[in-house]
């Protein structure tokens, strides 16, 4: 079979991000607030207007260089609604799930091994020169190799299900355009048991790190917040589909089993003049108390249990750390991420043994609708896609709430806390402070790091503004 190539034509391949943090001081040079600025892609929502609805799952993948599959699937779910496909065929649903588990696995593994493992292995105080992926490869070649192989496995799952490692086209409105061939299945089955072993090892590293450094982890950028995610009907973790659940800092339910198609009744987005990125909050609680976190940490907090045995065991240990109350530690995102990797590999294994994946029924159609909403748990958290499509099949409205946007307020608060610890009274950016801001931004893994994953570095610019709004210090990493 001829190898598939794609001609990359500029305009849409340029989407990449870089981070800028501004810290704003009051008259006494104390930190008033910190803002993470992300060059976002609102332009995309305009680009989509007028396009044909079946193109959208393919177009939106260009939004993000690191979790294109999440956008592909969220948009496909929205377009399922447009074509009236309320229940997909088992083959279509399971192929998409398999693709999604492959994606979360590879994304979380990449984040852990390439971006965070240096922080975890060497500590924050260690030599900056060593604290990167090359340092890890040098000191722990075996671990680094496992990270690379695990990521590759996730990519192979994506390739087998989506048609390509990046920017596949297999999820189409109403289903999927291919099943999993026996050859594709058997190739993946060869490695899956090894992956489970390594996923357990990685989860252990993250767990042990959390326990050993608890005094630091439980304080560093730890703060109370609400948490939100999709969960399954029985409260289990479900990364592909489910209903919305939000809990408060005490673990009390704010809402539960909300049909995500009604998300606009529960969530609102606040606009702030300085940011393209909006600030979502839970309507009922208002903007001051209604902001929330999403992503691996939140999912560990909202889920009652995990439906795969090894990950469930890890989840119980995770919950025990905070006596069953929501875990509020930013650095616990790392452990949560690795529990999810374990869950994904377990899921992948069980799906590979499921003969539905070789089924031939790929597509369903129902009554055409004009509005489509698709929600998925992306690697970084809940991802909302909302569209309207006119009778000519053209998109007339598009609103996306990406995971990073959901975590917007939380990230600003996290950075604020770090800045406060370092800056009180002295408007100078020190090297440790710069490091720690990076560490905290990295814990949330905002999309801005997508452009930088390959090098294991995050270009971050930090600026300090005095009460008059003048820049008094500026440093970049």
């Amino acid at each position, binding site marked *: *079979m*001829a190898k*598939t*190539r*794609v*001609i*990359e*034509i*500029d*305009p*849409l*391949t340029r989407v990449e991000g870089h981070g800028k943090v501004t810290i704003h001081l009051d008259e006494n040079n104390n930190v008033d607030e910190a803002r993470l600025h992300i060059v976002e892609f609102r332009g995309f929502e305009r680009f989509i207007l*007028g*396009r*044909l609805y*079946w*193109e959208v*799952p*393919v*177009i939106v*993948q*260009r939004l993000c260089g690191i979790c294109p599959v999440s956008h592909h699937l969220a948009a496909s779910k929205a377009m399922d609604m447009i*074509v009236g496909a309320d229940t997909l065929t088992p083959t279509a649903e399971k192929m998409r799930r398999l693709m999604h588990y492959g994606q979360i696995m590879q994304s979380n593994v990449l984040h852990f091994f390439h971006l965070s493992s240096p922080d975890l292995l060497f500590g924050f105080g260690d030599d900056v020169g060593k604290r990167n992926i090359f340092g890890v490869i040098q000191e722990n070649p075996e671990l680094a190799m496992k990270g690379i192989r695990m990521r590759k496995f996730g990519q192979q799952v994506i390739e087998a299900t989506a*048609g*390509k490692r990046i*920017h*596949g*086209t*297999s999820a*189409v*409105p109403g289903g999927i*355009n*291919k099943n999993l061939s026996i050859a594709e299945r058997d190739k993946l089955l060869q490695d899956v048991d090894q992956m489970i072993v390594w996923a357990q090892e990685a989860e252990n590293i993250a767990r042990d790190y959390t326990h050993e450094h608890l005094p630091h982890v439980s304080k560093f950028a730890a703060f109370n917040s609400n948490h939100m995610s999709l969960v399954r009907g029985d409260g289990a973790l479900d990364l592909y589909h489910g209903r919305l659940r939000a809990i408060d800092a005490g673990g009390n339910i704010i809402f539960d089993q909300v049909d995500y198609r009604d998300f606009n009744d529960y969530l609102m987005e606040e606009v702030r003049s300085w940011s393209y990125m909006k600030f979502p909050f839970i309507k009922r609680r208002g903007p001051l108390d209604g902001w929330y976190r999403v992503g691996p940490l939140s999912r560990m907090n909202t889920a009652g249990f995990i439906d795969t045995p090894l990950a469930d065991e890890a989840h119980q240990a995770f919950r025990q750390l905070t006596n069953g109350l929501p875990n509020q530690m930013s650095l616990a995102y790392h452990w949560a991420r690795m529990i999810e990797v374990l869950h994904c590999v377990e899921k992948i294994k069980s799906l590979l043994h499921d003969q539905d994946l070789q089924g031939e029924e790929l597509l369903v159609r129902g009554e055409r609708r004009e509005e489509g909403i698709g929600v998925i748990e992306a690697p970084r958290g809940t991802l909302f896609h909302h569209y309207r499509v006119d009778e*000519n*099949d*053209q998109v007339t409205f598009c609103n996306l709430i990406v995971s990073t946007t959901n975590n917007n307020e939380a990230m600003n608060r996290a950075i604020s806390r770090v800045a406060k610890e370092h800056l009180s009274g002295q408007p100078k950016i020190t090297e440790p402070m710069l490091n720690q801001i990076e560490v905290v931004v990295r814990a949330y893994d905002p999309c801005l790091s997508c452009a930088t994953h390959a090098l294991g570095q995050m270009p971050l610019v930090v600026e300090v503004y005095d009460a008059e709004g003048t820049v008094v210090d500026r440093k970049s990493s």
Partner: protein
Amino acid sequence: MAEKFTFSLDGQEITAEPGQSIMKAADAAGVYIPRLCDTEGLKPQGSCRVCVVKMNGRTVAACTQPARADAIVESETPEIMGYRRDLVRMLFHEGNHLCPICEASGRCELQAMAYRLGITQSTKYPYLQPVRPVDASHPDIVLDTNRCILCGRCIRASRDIDGKNVFEYVGRGVHKKVGVNGDSLADTDVSIDDRAINLETCPVGCIIQKGRGFFTPIGERQFDLAPIGSNGKGRKA
């Protein structure tokens, strides 16, 4: 009937009938000459110039130039390949071609031609990035002229085979584009069964049949299976 004769194409002896174009004669012999505006079943138009060859030292369009006895024709020389590359590149610059998000990817002749000619990167020249509205007014068919290469295949198919004249050129020079005979597609008597709408007619992703995009998985699309020109004709009839 007049006598058959032979000519040389890149050193190979090709048999032709009087009046037969170089392209037709080459096709009959199983030798592929790149092309975009020409396709089986439609009258040649000679407009894209991708089929450029040298006949006795003079550049001609192989799809319209009748073959001549004892002519020496060059096709796959570095010089001619260079012309073809430039022509194809210009088509990418003139329209809005975002292959990764285009449902014609994998069955598009322009894209396949670019691969055949070894064009895998964009050039330093600016893209014109025209803004052309999509006509999705018809229940079954979309016309997205952002990807049109003005090959005229739809025009000829509609006029000569469907007998309808649904498509036509409008404007001149750089403003030339394909329009429809009415306010919009819905306003014409076009039908999904027309030859002009057949997926083989439009070489690119300009004429689209609604709701079928991306149904063929990557790896099974026409040019995934066999690069353009590998069946001697460039597109299965």
